[in-house]
C-alpha cells in the first residue's frame, strides 16, 4: 500500500467512524488535495465534511481551532507545512495553549497535517523541516511517520487524540509502497504515540531517524554491513513529541554508539535534543564515542539541484558519520 493510500484510508475510516471529524484546507475537496491525499473523500462524505477554503492559512487554521474548541474534530490540511508559518499564531498561541490556559476546561482536538521537509527542487521556502519547531511547544503532539503502516496507524491515533497534533508527512514518500500487516489493514489499527520502532536490529551502532531519513538510514545500514561488516540498529522515531527516549537509551546501552539523522537544520534540532537527552540518561556511561548528528545544511535550502543535493543527508553521509562514531579510518 502506498503512503498516500494509507493516509487516505486513515482519513476515510475515521470520518466513517465519527461524524465530528471533518477535513478542511486549500484544494482538499474538488481537486482531491494538492498531493491527492484526500482523493474521493468529497464524493464519499460531501461538502459538509470536506471543505475547500479560500487561500487564507491564518483564517482556516483559526476556523479549525474554533471548531475544535466547540467540540468538533477537524483535520486541517496544509499544502505544505511551510505555509503553516502564516498561521503559526493560531497553532501555538491558540491551539496548543488553550486547554492549559482555560484551567483544563477547554479541549482542542485538531489534527494539522501535510507535507513537511524537503521535496526536490522547490527552494528554501518550500523545503524546511519543522519537526524541531513544533517539538519544542508544550501542548502539541508531533508525529513524523515513515511507512504506510506508520501513516495509517499514527494518523488515526492523531485524529482520536484529544490534543492538538502536528502530523508531518513527506512529499517524497507519498508514492512509495510498503507491505501492510493484516493487523494494519483493520479499521481498529492505531499506533500509540511515543513508541519508536526498531526497523532493523543491530549490535554495533544505533542510528535514530524519522520520516524519509529512516529509508536513508536503512540504506546506510546495508552499506555498513556489506562493506564493513558493521551491524547497525535503525530506530524509526515515529513521534517527535513525545520522544521515545527509553528506546534510544536501551539501544545505546547495547551498541554503545549513536548517530542521529534528520533533514532539519542542525541548530536546536531533533538531533540536538536527542544528544541532550542521552547525555542526561544512564546511556551516557554506555557511550564509547561522542554522538554524531547528521542534519540538513545550515543554510536556506538552495534550489539548483546541483546545490540542493549537498544540503540533505544521504546514505553515504550517514555511513561516514557512523564510521566516525565507530572510530574507523576513512
Amino acid at each position, binding site marked *: 500500500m502506498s503512503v498516500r493510500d494509507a493516509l487516505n484510508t486513515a482519513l476515510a475510516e475515521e470520518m466513517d467512524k465519527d461524524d465530528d471529524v471533518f477535513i478542511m484546507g486549500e*484544494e482538499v475537496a474538488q481537486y482531491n488535495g494538492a498531493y491527492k491525499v484526500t482523493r474521493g473523500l468529497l464524493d464519499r462524505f460531501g461538502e459538509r465534511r470536506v471543505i*475547500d477554503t479560500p487561500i487564507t492559512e491564518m483564517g482556516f487554521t483559526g476556523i479549525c481551532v474554533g471548531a475544535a474548541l466547540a467540540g468538533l474534530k477537524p483535520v486541517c490540511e496544509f499544502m505544505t507545512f511551510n505555509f503553516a508559518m502564516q498561521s503559526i499564531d493560531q497553532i501555538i498561541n491558540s491551539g496548543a495553549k488553550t486547554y492549559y490556559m482555560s484551567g483544563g476546561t477547554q479541549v482542542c482536538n485538531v489534527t494539522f497535517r501535510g507535507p513537511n521537509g524537503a521535496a526536490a527542487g*522547490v*527552494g*528554501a521556502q518550500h523545503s524546511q523541516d519543522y519537526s524541531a519547531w513544533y517539538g519544542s511547544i508544550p501542548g502539541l503532539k508531533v508525529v513524523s511517520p515513515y511507512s504506510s503502516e506508520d501513516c495509517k496507524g499514527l494518523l488515526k491515533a492523531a485524529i482520536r487524540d484529544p490534543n492538538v497534533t502536528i502530523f508531518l508527512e513527506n512529499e517524497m514518500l507519498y508514492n512509495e509502497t510498503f507491505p501492510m500487516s493484516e493487523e494494519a489493514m483493520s479499521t481498529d489499527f492505531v499506533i500509540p504515540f511515543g513508541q519508536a520502532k526498531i526497523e532493523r536490529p543491530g549490535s554495533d551502532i544505533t542510528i535514530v531517524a524519522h520520516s524519509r531519513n529512516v529509508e536513508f538510514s536503512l540504506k546506510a545500514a546495508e552499506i555498513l554491513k556489506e562493506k564493513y561488516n558493521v551491524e547497525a540498529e535503525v530506530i524509526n522515531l515515529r513521534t517527535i513529541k513525545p520522544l521515545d527516549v527509553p528506546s534510544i537509551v536501551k539501544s545505546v546501552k547495547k551498541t554503545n554508539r549513536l548517530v542521529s539523522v534528520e533533514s532539519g537544520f542542525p541548530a536546536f534540532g531533533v538531533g540536538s535534543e536527542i544528544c541532550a537527552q542521552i547525555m542526561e540518561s544512564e546511556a551516557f556511561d554506555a557511550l564509547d564515542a561522542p554522538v554524531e548528528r547528521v542534519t540538513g545544511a545550515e543554510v536556506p535550502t538552495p534550489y539548483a539541484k546541483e*546545490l540542493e543535493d*549537498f544540503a540533505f543527508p544521504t546514505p553515504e553521509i550517514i555511513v561516514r558519520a557512523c564510521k566516525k562514531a565507530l572510530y574507523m579510518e576513512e
Partner: protein
Amino acid sequence: MNVLIRLTKSTLAYPGAEKSLITPQLVFNDPTTLPVISTFRILSPTGALVDNNHSLTITSEKIVDLYKHMVTLHTLDTIMYDAQRQGRLSFYMTSSGEEAVSVASGAILEKHDQIFAQYREQGAFLARGLSVQDIMNQLYANSNDHGKGRNMPIHHVNKAINLHPISSPLATQIPHAVGAAYALKLTKPNQACSICYVGEGACSEGDFHAGLNIAATRECPVIFFVRNNGYAISTASKEQYKGDGIASRGPGYGIVTIRIDGNDLLAVYEATKAARDLAVKENRPVLIEAMTYRRSHHSTSDDSFAYRSKHEVDAWKRHDNPISRIRKYMQRPDINIWSDELEEKFRKATKKDILKCLQIAERTKKPPLSEIFTDVYFDNGGKELQPHLKEQKEELDEILAQYRSWYHLEDYKA
C-alpha cells in the same frame, strides 16, 4: 420618508465615522443592491475603440514595442512549457492570456519604482528591461542567475530593475510593497512608487487586509495591481470571495480603486499610468483590479482540465486573446503600424533568439559550490563566513577533496 440629520457643531460626532448622517430608518447596507463596479476598457476585442474620442497618451512606437514584448513572452512561455515537459526544467508557470496585464503595467514604471511580484508577471520584467537571457539564467539556476541558483524557476530577482525576490508564500509581498512605498515616501518624496502584483486568490490572505489598511492610513505611494484571472489553481473566483471582486474592497479601506479590462493593452497602460500619477504625486495608494482569464494550467504541476472544461478555455482562446486584440488594432488600415510581414519576421526571429538563450543557459556552468554557504549573514559586508558556516564549508571541501571522482565538479563554476 428619508430623513437625514446632519450633526451640527453643537452635537458630538462619533470619531469613528465623523461624516456619517443620522437616519431614523433601520436599513442594512445590502451589497446585493449596490451597483456592480464597471470595467474600464478602451479597445474592444474587435479592434475598435469603445469611444472614438478617447485621447491616448501612449504613442504608436510604444504600442509596437509592448506588442513585441507580449509576443516574446508568449513565445517564451510556449518554448519553456515544452522544455519542462521534456524534463529539461523542473517547473514553469506561463502567463498565457495575461500578457497585456503584465507587459503594459510594467511598461509605465520608472527608474526608482520598486516591483513586488507574485509570479505570473514575467511580462512586466521584460517591459522593465530584463532580457530573455536573464530570465533563462534564472530558470536554469546557472552561475549567471542573479539569485545564484537558489530559487525555484520563475522566482526572479533583479536589483537593476528593483525587482524584489519573488516569495513562494502567497501575499507576503503585499505588506512588503507597502513598507517599501513608505520608505520611498521618506527618501524620494513624489518621485517613485512601489507596485504590488497579486492574484485574486492571494487576496484572501490576511496580509491583503494588513497591507491595504496600512497603505491607506500611512498614505503610501503604492499601486496594488490585482490580476483577477478567475482561478487560484483549482479554486474558481466565485468560491474565493462573495463580494464584487477585489475592487469592491478598495473603498472600504479608503483607497481609490478602478476595475479594468486586463485583456486590453491600452486600458492597462493608461489606467496604470494614471494610477502611478496618483500614487507618486499625491501619495495615494491605488487599487487596480485587472480582469483577465488564466488560459494555461496553473503551473506545469497542474492539469486544469480536472476542474474546468476544455470548452471554456477554448472559448477564451478563440474569442478574446490580448495579443490578437491589439494586433487587430495595429493592422487597421487607419492605424497601420503593423503588418503580416512584420509579424512573421518578428515571430521567427524571436523564436530563434529565445532558443539560443535557452541553449546558452543550459550550457552555462552551475553556481560555484562555495556559494552554498555565502549570503546567509551580511557580516563584514557579506565577505566573512560565520564560524559554523566556515566549518560546514571546510567539511565539504574535505569531502570533495577526498571523493573528487564521485562528483561532477566540472559542472560547477570554479
